[in-house]
């Protein structure tokens, strides 16, 4: 029958169609790269930027998550900002400040700055905003920013109605007193969580302020953009704040498109529906660099990824040689090649390159299987005999799975019997926090310009106790560094502490990750920084 022939042809055509197009994947659709050489930034245009999910809310009190920060930093401003070119803190609402003993901070506000609703920002607004973060009824996840302020603990446990250490001196002067000296504090005030909010709006909105999909008249900040629409699981639209006190944004606005899958995000970018991507699907990084030459931006993050070792339990307890042997058994370059597709910097110690405290001359560990075997024998387990199997725990994610398998293979080569234990994140995080795991994958990010923000919570004896690591000398050095005002002196102390920690090896140091961003050819002015925050107000669209 004629019809049947047609049918066969159709089926064949379908197969051919699929075969043809599938071989062509990944080779076309490259938009030309225009260099910004000498071009003047110009105003206009909407940037289309993907988010993996909705932020929990656009209440700064909840900005303890990447998503909230990505949007929130554009809508809200605080007292200060970080400048990563010079690693210094620069003015935002505070035009200048005095610091006494890293303990008493006096801020002098810029007069005449305004909220998105037109009201003027005063010192009282900042007092309210900070006190609100400590108010137990707020339940702020970013309360840690201010937990060292005098009287914070009393306020957080509901014993007082305000915070002792936060004082309004006059309309434009605010004074904050800390319980203990902290060189990190000023950096922390640059966190988007420490933003100024309008009391009247917040109190009128009540619970709605915390909700996903909050209305623009509730989300009122002072930043370079203001919220114009939020449709949950769809899009968040922000537009330029024409009344901004600083340099106004070039873009007319940004559409944050909510797309949960990184492969879908990449496909939307290929189709020309997105302008900037900050999450490239694992396994496709090198492909993307070939597909979009000149459009990939690499950025080393201030983060250290390591395998923590519980030094309070056998076999790691009182056995430095064993812990060092583990460090010599790891081929960091190999792991970076296999797991990160080459996007990482091998870690010699704790602190990432780029931080002022980073030590070029740190005695770290290199890949040396012979030395690892020798140390293993010295530790009392020649050839791994007598060593109970190590259990490497991690939260299940594609990259962590690959990492754990690579580490396992390398350790077994030297003679460490190793088992893997993958866990869901909420369970894993609790177990790590409780210090219950023997060997665990963890990454730690710097959240201030001061290395104390990494060293103290991880290795100070009052710390989180993931490793159960305690060393009075490290404690002394870290405590001293906290109160030293002069940065050069502080750097010396931190470097000494880091060397002791690295020598004692409560962890297998792995790498500092490098993040990849992908931008459309006409996107200019992308400024990356080591805290993985891309400010959108400096971005502009050419031609």
């Amino acid at each position, binding site marked *: 029958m004629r019809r049947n022939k047609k*049918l066969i042809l159709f*089926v064949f055509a379908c197969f051919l169609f*699929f075969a043809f197009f599938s071989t062509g994947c990944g080779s076309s659709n490259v938009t030309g790269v225009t260099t910004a050489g000498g071009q003047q930034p110009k105003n206009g245009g909407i940037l289309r930027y993907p988010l993996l999910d909705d932020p929990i809310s656009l209440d700064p009190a909840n900005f303890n998550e990447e998503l909230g920060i990505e949007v929130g930093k554009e809508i809200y401003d605080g007292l200060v900002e970080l400048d990563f070119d010079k690693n210094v803190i620069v003015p935002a609402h505070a035009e200048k400040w005095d610091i006494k003993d890293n303990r008493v901070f006096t801020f002098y506000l810029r007069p005449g700055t305004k909220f998105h609703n037109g009201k003027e920002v005063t010192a009282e607004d900042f007092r309210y905003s900070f006190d609100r973060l400590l108010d137990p009824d707020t339940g702020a996840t970013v309360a840690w920013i201010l937990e060292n302020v005098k009287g914070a603990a009393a306020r957080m446990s509901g014993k007082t109605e305000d915070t002792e250490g936060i004082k309004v001196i006059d309309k434009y002067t605010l004074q904050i007193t800390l319980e203990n000296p902290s060189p990190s504090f000023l950096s922390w005030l640059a966190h988007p969580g420490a933003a100024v909010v309008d009391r009247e709006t917040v109190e009128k909105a009540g619970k709605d302020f915390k909700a996903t999909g909050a209305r623009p008249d509730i989300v009122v900040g002072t930043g370079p953009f203001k919220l114009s629409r939020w449709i949950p699981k769809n899009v968040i639209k922000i537009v330029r704040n024409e009344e901004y006190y600083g340099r106004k944004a070039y873009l007319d606005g940004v559409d944050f498109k*909510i797309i949960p899958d990184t492969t879908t995000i990449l*496909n939307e970018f290929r189709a020309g529906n997105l302008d900037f991507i900050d999450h490239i699907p694992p396994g496709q990084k090198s492909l993307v660099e070939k597909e979009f030459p000149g459009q990939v931006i690499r950025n080393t993050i201030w983060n250290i990824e390591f395998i923590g070792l519980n030094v309070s339990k056998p076999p790691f307890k009182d056995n430095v040689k064993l812990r060092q042997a583990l460090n010599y058994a790891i081929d960091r370059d190999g792991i970076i090649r296999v797991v990160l597709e080459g996007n990482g910097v091998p870690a010699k110690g704790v602190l990432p390159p780029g931080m002022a405290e980073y030590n070029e001359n740190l005695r770290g560990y290199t890949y040396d299987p012979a030395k690892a075997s020798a140390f293993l024998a010295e530790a009392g387990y020649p050839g791994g005999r007598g060593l109970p199997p190590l259990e490497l725990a991690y939260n299940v994610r594609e990259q962590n799975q690959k990492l754990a398998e690579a580490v396992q293979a390398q350790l077994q080569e030297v003679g460490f019997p190793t088992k893997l234990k993958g866990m869901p994140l909420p369970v894993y995080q*609790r177990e790590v926090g409780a210090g219950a795991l023997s060997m665990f994958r963890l990454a730690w990010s710097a*959240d201030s310009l001061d290395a104390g923000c990494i060293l103290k919570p991880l290795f100070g004896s009052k710390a989180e106790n993931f490793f159960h690591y305690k060393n009075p000398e490290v404690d002394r050095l870290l405590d001293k560094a906290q109160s030293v005002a002069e940065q050069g002196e502080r750097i010396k102390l931190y470097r000494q502490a880091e060397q002791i920690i690295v020598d004692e090896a409560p962890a297998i140091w792995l790498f500092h990750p490098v993040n990849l961003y992908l931008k459309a050819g006409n996107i200019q002015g992308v400024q990356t920084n080591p805290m993985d925050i891309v400010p959108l107000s400096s971005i502009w669209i050419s031609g």
Partner: protein
Amino acid sequence: MVRFIVKRLLALIPILLGISFVSSMLFYIVPGDIVTVMLGQHVDPLTYANVRKALGLDLPFWENFIRFIQGVFCGDLGYSYIQQRPVNQIILEAVPVSVKMGIMALLINIIVGIPAGILAAINDKRISGRVLNSSSIIIFSFPAFIAAMFMQLILGVKLGWFPVSGSEKGMLSYVLPGLALGLPLSAVNARLARASMLEVMTQEYIISAISRGLPYRRVIIKHGLRNALIPVLTNFGMFVGAFMSGFVLTETVFNLPGMGRLVFSAINARDFPVLRGILFISALFAVLTNLLVDLIYARLDPRIATVIVGENTDAAG
């Protein structure tokens, strides 16, 4: 009949109470702590306690359960931990998306599956029939997520015929997800239709219709198809179940904010109020659908009515 309906509706109460009880237990027995995840690098005991309290995580089991039951009577399914807004609102936003995608998938399933099955049956002895039959096996064996990604890349990115993802372009947005979801299942449908058609075609009334000289095409459509479709239609109920499991994946790849994605993210984030709301609504929906199906059967076939209703005198009235 009225008594039957009332009886069935009353039986709903213990079912829904049971579902509420079990899903409220989830809050307390599923391991993992969402607050430690939210706090990340900065877990301190005071912050931890305050955040737990603000989210309502510190309630004891009975209070949690009773509050939920009270809420249900007022049509309120509770408040999401993560999104900090009513569960009702969250579910109401997600349902239409999944319904639209389901309808699209069902349409594609019918449009592709049934004709393919019938063509395969009437050409059973010819090459075209065999090609159809074997390609349905190939299509069915193709992993759904690979099919979804292929379609996205080819029909969305390369050709630009359909939106790559999202739900902004109206029904056009649902074509690719519908294809990804409906096509593999249409292969099942085609095989079912083929088998049923083959069986019908050997029946005596078909042979006699052909021998009486009726046009072949009319015999196929009027006499064959009608009877062959009954087992296919009976199976649609099963397809709805199969669709549900495909929702999570398809909605994620095509970025449709429907029920599948909602369930997935609620489980990942340990957002139990949302999960409990979904379980409650799905139970309600399942029970009511079953009741409806029973009633339709009773209308269609008095013999069934006797069995399920147990009082055939009522069935007439």
